[in-house]
């Protein structure tokens, strides 16, 4: 042992030590990759990435995950999607989300994580998933500004939509020829106003006369929605505003009274009493007959003794 650590053998010892370290590192690397391979599935999935900006504040990335089953696309639930910002080097992880039953993984990008830029390149990726092989989708969107102003001129309500993009210097400039949809929020969906989308003029503006006959809530409030939908350059932009341009909804007090057409909780008293009385009477008699059946059995037992 002694000579092993002698000066002559010192270099040999260092060599062996280096080889050992290398071998251990190699084993560790191989085991890691084999572990990673064991964790990564072989299924094929596809990702559709969409970008939505709401009221120029909330930036939302949505990845829709699909896979082919029997030659048809099926939405996939429970897949973890990692979202990156590729606009800066190295790629910045914005966050992760798991797909829901609609196959959608939704990430609201935290304000602090995304510095203002003229354009963004986002990546949505499946990485080391147990079910699916690694896959990623890239989306480029330009920074834009969608603003909706509401005004009344000569007793006509008007919605003015202004769409602005950014030039190379990052300055906001009017965005012409962009299709914008205008809607009013209804109970089960959005009512388009007008039927087809309008296109912005050279000033990036659209002006739409707003109808006066739409029913609103009890105070006449309506939620007006302007949307740029699936635009190749800007993605999805949305601007919502609440305005009391609707007809106040007067709720018929009879809806809260006890009537045949009212809700379950407002059933007429006479009907509740009538139905329950009939039920108690008839089922009371049935119960009495069942009791009589037991009496027959009881008498039978006594008779057999």
């Amino acid at each position: 042992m002694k000579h092993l650590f002698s000066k002559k053998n010192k270099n040999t010892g260092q060599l062996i030590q280096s080889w050992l370290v290398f071998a251990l590192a190699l084993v560790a690397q191989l085991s890691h990759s084999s572990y990673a391979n064991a964790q990564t599935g072989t299924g094929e999935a596809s990702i559709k990435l969409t970008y939505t900006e709401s009221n120029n504040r909330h930036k939302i990335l949505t990845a829709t995950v699909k896979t082919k089953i029997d030659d048809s696309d099926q939405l996939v639930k429970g897949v973890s999607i990692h979202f990156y910002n590729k606009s800066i080097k190295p790629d910045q992880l914005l966050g992760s989300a798991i797909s829901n039953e609609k196959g959608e993984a939704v990430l609201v990008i935290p304000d602090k994580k995304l510095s203002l830029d003229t354009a963004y390149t986002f990546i949505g990726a499946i990485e080391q998933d147990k079910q699916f092989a690694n896959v990623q989708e890239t989306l480029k969107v330009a920074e834009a500004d969608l603003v909706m102003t509401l005004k009344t001129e000569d007793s006509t309500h008007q919605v003015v939509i202004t769409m602005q993009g950014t030039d190379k210097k990052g300055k906001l400039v009017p965005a012409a020829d962009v299709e914008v949809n205008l809607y009013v929020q209804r109970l089960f969906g959005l009512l388009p106003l007008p039927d087809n989308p309008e296109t912005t003029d050279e000033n990036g503006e659209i002006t739409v006369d707003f109808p006066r006959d739409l029913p609103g809530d009890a105070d006449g409030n309506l939620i007006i929605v302007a949307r740029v939908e699936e635009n190749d350059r800007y993605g999805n932009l949305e601007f919502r505003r609440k305005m009391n341009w609707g007809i106040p909804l007067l709720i018929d007090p009879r809806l809260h009274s006890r009537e045949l057409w009212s809700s379950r909780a407002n059933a007429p008293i006479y009907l509740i009493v009538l139905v329950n009385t009939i039920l108690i009477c008839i089922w009371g008699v049935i119960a009495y007959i069942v009791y009589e059946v037991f009496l027959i059995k009881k008498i039978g037992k006594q008779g057999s003794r």
Partner: protein
Amino acid sequence: MEMNKATFSGPFAAQAEVIRTDLMPKPFGLSGKIWVVVLSIIFLIGFFFYTKQVRHGLGITAMRDYSTWGIYIANFVFFVAISLVGSLISAILKLSGVRWRTPLTRISEMIAISSIIFAALVIIVDMGRPDRFMNVIIHARIQSPITWDVIVITTYLAISTLLFYLPLIPDLALYRDHAKGIPVWQQKMYKFLALGWNSHPAQQAILDRAERILAILIIPVAFGIHTVTSWLFATTLRPGWDSNDFGPYFVSGAFMVGAGAVIAAMYIFRINKHWGKYLTDKHFDFMAKLLVLLSLVYLYFNINEYFIPAYKMKGQEAAHLNELFYGRYAPLFWTVQVFGMIIPIIVLLFRSGRKPFPMFLVSIMVVVGAWFKRFLIVIPTLGHPYIPMDRVPESWRHYSPTFEEWCITAGTLAGALLIITLLARLFPVIPVVETIEEANPNHHETEMS
């Protein structure tokens, strides 16, 4: 037991023994086995397609936004209708003191129980999400006729089961004590269900009282079940359904089809079990006269239902009636009216038409006609909403049941027949003790006195 012993040991013993042996449930013969296998196959095919419907949803049916009710609901109404026969024979004829009803009571109760069970099941079949069935009960609106229907079906099933079971107790005791060569499980079942019956006067008094109470109770419930079913339609504002006398129209039609079903079953049992001396030509003759009476009442309501609106021909009602009288549904409508009602009435008016075999054919016409009549009540109306169909796919405008719907419906009909077959295999189809008592000359003397 004392009564049984006395019956089988007195001078009338030999005849009583013959009746007991004749009416005892027997294992299936070859034809019975084939019948059960065929019904089971049809039922299983229906069940298979139902599992497909559960997996894929009601999209596999032809029901769409306008025709939201299809043959499932027509089938439901048919089952409810046919079940009313239990109250007709077991209650109305019993309380009227009609003596010839004795061999028919249990047949009618078997039909009633099997039909009402499948009426309830068909409602679940019609649900796109059967896993949410309990919501119908948990979130029931007491103002809704659907809630009333759920209540009244459950009640009718309970009363029908009791009305089937209570008169069966003396017969079960008879076979408990006298049946030989039957499997042990069947003996045990008879013993359990006979409730220690020993013909004690106190037991007999309780049984008589209970049967009388049930016979009275089932009449309003029976009228209720089919009236409420008619209200499912009549409480909606639709051409063809917006009628004030839908309740009696449904009830009269139900009694008619029920009587037809009993006649068909009587004939099959008579032939299959050689029961010519129990289900006599006289029984058929009485049932034929009853069926004619019920058919005439139903004809009267049909005249009111179709010809009075046809006299006015207003709005969408006219479109609906034109489609029935001359349009798409005319061949079916007139076939049902003529072969399902008019011809049976004419045939049964003649003495030769009231013989068992012609009556069997007539009863089949009545029952099949009644099923398609429910189809004509439910489906054509849905094709004529008051707000016209506009910009809808072509498939929404017309309803033609899909192959899966036919299979599932056939499965439910086979299932109902299977229940009747099973009940007839396990329990005496004709009340044995009552038949023995009525055949005993001393019994008549006692009754007369």
